[in-house]
C-alpha cells in the first residue's frame, strides 16, 4: 500500500487515469474487477446514487460503465477496458456509500469479462501509476477523506 496526499493506493492494482477518470482494475484471469480510487471517491463526495450497467451489457473502453451522483458531482465511471458486464455489484447499488467507505473492497462497481485483452497493457501500474496520481493530486489539491456511511 502506498499513501500519497492521504490517498491510499493498494499494491497489485492497475489504474485507468484519463481526463476525469481515476478507476482501479484488478485482474482476475479473463475478467477484471473495477472500482473508484480513493481520490475519485473523495472528489465525488458522499455518493447518494449509483447506477451500473446491467449484466450482459457490452462496453467499449471509455464508454460509461456506471453513473455516480453525490449532489455535488454527477458523472460517468468509464469502462477501463472493452468487455461485457458479468456482474454489477448489487451491494453498492443498495448502499452507495460503500464507494466512499471501502472503495477498494466492498465498494467495487462491476466485474467485466474482457474482450480485448491487449487493452490491459494500456492501464497504468506500479511507479508509473503513482507518478501520475502524484501529479494529479498536486495539480487539483486533492487530499483524500473517507466519509462515514
Amino acid at each position, binding site marked *: 500500500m502506498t499513501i500519497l496526499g492521504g490517498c491510499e493506493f493498494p499494491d497489485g492494482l492497475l489504474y485507468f487515469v484519463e*481526463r*476525469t477518470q481515476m478507476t482501479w482494475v484488478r485482474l482476475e484471469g479473463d475478467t477484471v474487477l473495477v472500482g473508484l480510487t480513493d481520490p475519485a471517491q473523495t472528489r465525488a463526495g458522499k455518493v447518494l446514487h449509483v*447506477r451500473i*450497467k*446491467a449484466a450482459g*451489457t457490452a462496453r467499449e473502453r471509455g*464508454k*460509461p460503465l456506471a*453513473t455516480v*451522483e453525490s*449532489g*455535488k*458531482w*454527477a*458523472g*460517468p465511471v468509464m469502462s477501463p477496458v472493452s468487455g461485457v458486464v458479468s456482474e454489477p455489484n448489487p451491494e453498492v447499488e443498495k448502499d452507495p456509500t460503500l464507494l466512499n467507505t471501502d472503495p477498494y473492497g466492498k465498494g467495487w462497481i462491476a466485474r467485466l469479462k474482457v474482450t480485448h485483452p491487449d487493452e490491459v497493457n494500456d492501464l497504468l501500474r506500479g511507479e508509473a501509476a503513482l507518478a501520475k496520481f502524484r501529479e494529479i493530486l498536486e495539480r487539483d489539491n486533492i487530499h483524500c477523506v473517507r466519509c462515514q456511511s
Partner: protein
Amino acid sequence: MTDPTTAPPDPEGKKILMIMTSGPEDPDKTYAPFYTAALMAAMEIDTTMYFLMHAPELLRRGAAERVPLKKGGNLKMFIDMARENGVKFLACAESCRDLCEIAEGDLLEGVQLVGSATLADLALDADSVISF
C-alpha cells in the same frame, strides 16, 4: 409509472431537451438544471440545454463565477461538469440580442447561437422535453 422493483430500461441513445429560462437573477433555479443535465449526459442520453429569456446571461464569460450557491461555491463548477460530460449548450439568438445584450464573442466557448425555429426542431426531435 416505473416499477421501482425492476431495473429501468437503459436510456442510452435517447434525446432530452432541457429548456432553461432562469438567469443569474434567481441563483436557486440555476444549479439543478446543470447538475441534472450532467447526470443525463453521463447516462449516455443525448442532452441539449436551450437557454432563452434571461438564461443566456449564465453563459456570459465570467458570469457563472458570480452566481453563488446556497451549498457553497458558485455555478461555474456545475456548468463545467455538464460540459465535461458532453451536454450541448444552445443560446437563443433573439434573447441574447434583445434581452441580454450579449454578443456571440461574450459567450462561453462552444455555445452555439441559434434561432427560435431551432427550438421547435429540437422539441419535436427529442424523446422528452424538460423546462426549468
